[in-house]
């Protein structure tokens, strides 16, 4: 497989995963703002995920919320909006059509056509935002299921998975960082359990959380679940396991024998997570722990680049 193609597959899934994370973020923040009446949280999202700090005055009502969501979804000048993220994913898919199943291509192309159709932007403004966001989320779910059931297993699938799991891990770390920071800023004005409940909703882990910890929403339990729960598909640990597995499988598909730096580092990071507990995180401090983890992930990402995409 061409280096360029491997890179396209990797980014096709990274962007698609990013769009899924963004939709979850919008959805949760929308609900959270409705419950608390605090619309200022949108500013943090615009800063952190859209990389903008101007143009929007502090939102203080429902109409502002709709304008901000409209911007996050449809603005074509900001590279971090859903429209552009899907467009990048689709462009990557377009370049590798001979390596992906028809179902994956069709699901990506249909998503792009839907989000780029001007009439759908008008539709958003007239409809219930949650209903519209759910419609968009369905495209992500169709993509994920298409990839799972129709993509042949091999190098292409591994590169897609690497992109997806790496993006998901980074998203989980970022959201933890970002939300905990937000909590420390707003803890006087917020009901903490409501905030944490929304956080776990955002991560899509509400059911698992309730099963594991019952209804006790405390920060330690949430950190434990997002970082080291191996059954939660958005936890750092779960995704690192998948990353390591795909790195090893890539070597098998390409008949590469023996350990190498990439496999070594992936397994090392995997082991670190295996022996991490909530107490050890507390000892190091959450910020330091997440900082180290993100550095290790960046290192892993660079090694993937060097090993597979360096022919570019």
């Amino acid at each position: 497989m061409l280096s360029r193609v491997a890179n396209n597959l990797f980014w096709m899934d990274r962007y698609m995963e990013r769009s899924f994370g963004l939709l979850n973020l919008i959805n949760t923040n929308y609900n959270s703002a409705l419950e608390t009446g605090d619309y200022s949280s949108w500013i943090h999202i615009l800063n952190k995920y859209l990389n903008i700090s101007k143009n929007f005055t502090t939102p203080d009502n429902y109409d502002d919320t709709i304008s901000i969501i409209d911007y996050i979804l449809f603005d074509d000048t900001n590279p971090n909006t859903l429209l552009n993220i899907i467009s990048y994913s689709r462009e990557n898919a377009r370049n590798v059509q001979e390596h992906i199943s028809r179902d994956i291509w069709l699901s990506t192309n249909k998503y792009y056509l839907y989000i780029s159709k001007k009439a759908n932007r008008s539709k958003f403004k007239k409809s219930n935002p949650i209903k519209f966001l759910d419609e968009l989320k369905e495209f992500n779910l169709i993509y994920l299921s298409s990839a799972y059931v129709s993509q042949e297993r091999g190098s292409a699938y591994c590169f897609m998975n690497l992109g997806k799991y790496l993006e998901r891990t980074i998203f989980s770390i970022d959201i933890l960082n970002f939300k905990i920071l937000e909590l420390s800023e707003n803890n006087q004005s917020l009901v903490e359990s409501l905030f944490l409940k929304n956080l776990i909703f955002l991560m899509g882990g509400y059911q698992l959380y309730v099963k594991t910890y019952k209804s006790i929403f405390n920060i330690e339990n949430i950190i434990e679940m997002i970082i080291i729960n191996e059954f939660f598909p958005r936890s750092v640990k779960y995704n690192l396991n998948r990353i390591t597995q795909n790195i090893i499988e890539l070597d098998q598909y390409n008949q590469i024998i023996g350990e190498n730096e990439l496999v070594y580092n992936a397994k090392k990071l995997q082991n670190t997570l295996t022996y991490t507990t909530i107490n050890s995180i507390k000892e190091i401090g959450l910020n330091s722990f997440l900082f180290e983890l993100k550095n290790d992930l960046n290192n892993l990402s660079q090694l993937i680049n060097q090993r597979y995409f360096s022919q570019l």
Partner: protein
Amino acid sequence: MHMEFSYLDFYSIISLIFFSTSFVKNFDQKKENIFFNDDYEHYPNTWDEMFKNDGKVRRSYKFLEKFLNNSSFDSIKEKQDFSDQFFMNQGITFTVYDNDQGVERIFPFDILPRIIRPNEWDTIEKGIVQRVKALNLFLKDIYNEQYILKDQIFPSRLLLTNPYFLTQMKGLKTPLDVYTHVSGVDLIRNNDGKFYVLEDNLRTPSGVCYMLENREVSRKLFPSIFPKQNVSSVSSYPQVLYNQLSSLVNKTKPTIVLLTPGSFNSAYYEHTTLARLMGVELVEGKDLVVDDNFVFMKTATGLQKVDVIYKRIDDEFLDPLVFNNQSYLGIAGIMNVYRSGNVVLANAPGAGIADDKASYVYVPEMIKYYLNEKPILDNITTYQLGKPDELDYVLKNINKMVIKKTDGSGGYGMLMGSNSTDEEIDNYIKQIKKNPTNFIAQPTLNLSTTPCIIDETLSPRCVDLRPFAIFGGEGIKVCPGGLSRVALKKGSLVVNSSQGGGSKDTWVLEKNQNVK
């Protein structure tokens, strides 16, 4: 040959001028069906693919008449919408820009198929095989012994002045002596009902994926009538192409790649489709590298040697060390590798000398010279203005002529006599007289028409046909079908996608079938 008011451009653009006053209503009997009424404006002195001059439906189209008789507008509209959505979802689109906003458009598809009868196809197939064989022999000759020049059949001056003649190809023997691996021969049907060759495309002929996708959508649109018509299958085209390319190297499992200019090329969808259906890598120039006089592709796990390159980029951009040194699309040093026989390029560089419009005039003579045969498919009458008597005739009849520069393309730098002012004609004549050999002229022709569903009624539109031939170890294989391009607008019309053209599925009926 009739000289009417339609015009054909030599390079894939068909432009027709119709005088609105000359439309005639040709149906004697008003039919009750919404599609078969007396509004069908049969173009005068023009062959219609479906209707005879008396308005009766040709036998091969009877099934379509029956289908339309039993169809409502809504059901047809539904089918048209389905096909539009099909092309859109598949990503079979091109981008047009409006106020810097890229908007994706599909190449319009008219759902009614164009039918080619078995005996018609027999002539087309044999004619194309004959023509491609002769053109290939011409290329082999012109880059080696040059007997055709020595025997003064083909003038040497045309080589000297032709940019498509590549000196880098001289003395080079290609595998199996094949130069024209993939050809697209543009045909039109004149008002005598015969097919004529409009032009040969031997460099990077495109459109084959529309042929494949049009068939795909037709099968979905007409599930009840398609199987009964014994339509020849076109689906094996990618496999035939793969086999023919494989046959060029003595290797069990050669590495074949398709070289594309990239995703901004208007034919990119076709490149991805062919690569996908052949199961080969789609590469860009930057994915390939020359090392130790071999070509390698940069894979995720290292370099991999490439044996055959089906190139879809123009020769000019192929090798910056030899041709255009500004090109980022090609591969530096690839011509050396090619000349050493370490990689096969299809089509061979320099094939353009055979499909140039100055060379076109000589194709019938090539057929006679190399094959000692009479052309099965005739050329359109073409006058070389470098010949004084022909120049004289053209100037006297300039209102009925289309004049083109031999090195022009894309419809630029031409004169349509019937549609030009006296001043334009005078200016053009001045250009001709400076260097008459740089010009050719053709009488305006009547293209055949085919019924299309336009504004909720059947309406005739001009149509051409581009069948595709693949040349390799298994000889010349012509795919039984092709791309039928229709000019969807009235007036001065073109068939290419950026200028209002569309396409139809082409159903070549098999022999010994009973039309049901």
